[in-house]
């Protein structure tokens, strides 16, 4: 019962180096070390675990500049079988709507997939919309915030997902789009042998034309999202130290603390 798995990953700036261009509202990527979006590593790990349990083949798909091929090679060095890069000037500036349209096109192009795995969100844009977007474009069921992929049958799978009130377990028809949270598994590290293999693997580069995509739905022009303004939150952290010297000040201090908590929780 081998499964065909696709993992969608994004190359993001190193977490410590994320900076925004306030004029354009986009993330500054030039001259900043790039990594695989840390939350996508959990999707990669989940895919590797599924392959270990059920067999099959995993393809990592990424959209980005030519440099994003490094992210695919990193995924392969962790154990992913193949990589595909969507790279085309037509993709530049795409928002989540356009990005998920392009990724959905690539998944259709690859064909025959059972499970599409994504990270919860990317640490640069922080939207969490691309996974569900892919499902919408492909008209597939989607399960977000999945913490456990319990079982996979011939035509269905059982998933456990985090919701506000706890967990819910659901059965979904395959193919399915799943976005995972950190709980799903701890990502393994790339190995020396993995790195060596990743250098040899041929990673095809696909364009909008290869995928027969409608260019009016791609890039900055095709993206409905406009960043109007970026606001930095003010740091309002203030410390009030309540010193207790004797019984009387103890009551005062606990009273003040209780009042503070009541006020804050209003």
């Amino acid at each position, binding site marked *: 019962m081998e499964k065909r798995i696709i993992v969608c990953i994004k190359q993001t700036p*190193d*977490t*410590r*180096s994320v900076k925004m261009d306030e004029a354009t509202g986009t993330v500054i990527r030039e001259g900043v*070390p*790039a*990594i695989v979006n*840390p939350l996508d590593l959990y999707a990669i790990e989940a895919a590797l675990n599924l392959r270990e349990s059920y067999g099959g083949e995993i393809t990592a798909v990424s959209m980005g500049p030519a440099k994003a091929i490094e992210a695919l090679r*990193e995924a392969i*060095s962790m154990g992913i079988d193949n990589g595909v890069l969507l790279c085309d000037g037509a993709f530049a500036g795409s928002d989540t709507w356009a990005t998920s349209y392009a990724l959905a096109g690539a998944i259709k192009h690859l064909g025959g997939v059972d499970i599409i795995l994504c990270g919860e969100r990317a640490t640069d844009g922080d939207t969490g919309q691309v996974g569900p977007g892919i499902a919408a474009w492909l008209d597939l069921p989607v399960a977000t915030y999945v913490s456990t992929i319990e079982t996979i049958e011939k035509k269905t799978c059982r998933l456990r997902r985090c919701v506000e009130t706890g967990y819910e377990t659901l059965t979904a028809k395959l193919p399915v789009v799943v976005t995972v949270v950190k709980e799903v598994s*701890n990502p*393994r*590290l*790339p*190995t*020396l*042998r*993995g*790195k*060596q293999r990743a250098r040899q693997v041929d990673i095809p580069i696909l364009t909008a034309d290869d995928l027969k995509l409608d260019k009016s739905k791609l890039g900055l022009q095709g993206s409905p999202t406009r960043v109007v303004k970026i606001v930095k939150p003010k740091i309002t952290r203030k410390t009030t130290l309540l010193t207790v010297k004797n019984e009387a000040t103890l009551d005062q201090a606990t009273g003040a603390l209780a009042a503070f908590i009541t006020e804050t929780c209003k």
Partner: protein
Amino acid sequence: MSEEPNTNYQKVTDRIVEELQAIVGERYVIYGDADALEAYSHDETGGKQWAHPPEVAVRPETTEQIAAIMKLANRERIPVTPRGAGSGLSGGAVPIYGGIVLLSDRMNRILEIDTDNLMITVEPAVITSEINEQVEPLRLFYAGYPMSMETCSIGGNVAENAGGGKAIKYGVTSRYVLGLEVVTPTGDIVQLGGKLIKDVTGYNLVQLMVGSEGTLGIFTKITLKLLPLPQAQVDLLCLFSSPEQAIGAVTTIITACGIIPTAVEFIDRQSFEASCKYLNETLPYQDAGAMLLITLDGHSPDQVQNDYEAVGEKCMELGATEVYVADNPTTSERIWRIRRNIPEAYNLITQRQSGEDIVVPPASIPQLVAKIRRLAEKYDVLIPTYGHAGDGNLHSRLVSKPEWSDEYWNELLPRLQTELYQLTAQLGGRISGEHGIGHKRKKYLAHVVSQEYITMLRAIKRALDPNNILNPGKIFDMEPSSTESIT
């Protein structure tokens, strides 16, 4: 303090506090507040027996204020203990005779980044990692890499001649200190060295000050050498099935590959298990007996790739069961934090322990590890061992079993230390590679050095600090004690 030699120090009185207030300003003198002073009674050595509070703490802002404080202290015969960030591991900043603690925290400015000479001049309280944050955009770096670099200050690094993770390739702090402005123990201000790569104008007093543990002078300005920032860095985490296999690989890697790694860290099973549990890290360490963390850096990604391929393959050839590769800052940090958090992990497990800092010639490291294992078996004690295997410096921790009583442990620990230091000395080693002697190890100093050497140390101290005012009771006592000749 267990043994307090007869000293003739005077107590800090209200009149002296007023004088101190006149020098630094009233709000920068901490006095009469036991809770506030407690913070300056200890460093990170651990164990209440090493702690002692000061009578007063002062926070000067200028070199001249420090000079005035030293003159006052000499006149009144009050001991002065300089303190950086308090992250020391041998008690260097602990005022064991009370008196004045001199806090450097207000002197925390970066004074100049000289990109023509590749040098930086800083005040002592600058946090070590802050230097790299400032110079990295200029494609420069400061090569010191103590494991506490996010919390320790550069003044303390210079005072202890801090080593750290990159010493095998880049050496220790002393290699980078070119100039010092120093307040002497008697309150004079003197400039030592400067922006000079070569300088033989008189004795090499800069290097006398580096590693003097706050006993010979107070650094108020420090000029450091910077290096061009390596453009690529890769870390390898190599799992071996036994500690002997891992430690045996260290010298072979260096000699056979013809590459000096930036770091070669050894981490035994107990140490990485404790740290991984502390960090909730789930690397498959269960099957590993020891790990090597090897860092390689260089001017281009291709060069570093060639280097790590060679070193990684050599590790596999020497029995590594897996070699992980971290070639970006996020993955690198995931690996290094396992190494850096070992002390913290053990601090949570027990307070009854002693972090050691023994150092031997690098090629003797396998013998040292074998001897430590036999010592642990002999006393049925835990001795997790990790550290800078590439440069011969290991951090064994002597850790009490939970069921042992305080009495038993307090009686056993000195015996363990004595044997550990003796076996280190037999291999041509010393009792501290980078943490310093402080007061924690001073009674063991005579085990590994000659009497003539200690006599020389005393002569230097006496010449610069005739009243024994600056950080007294550290490294050695001025008068020989009865325990000094038990080798």
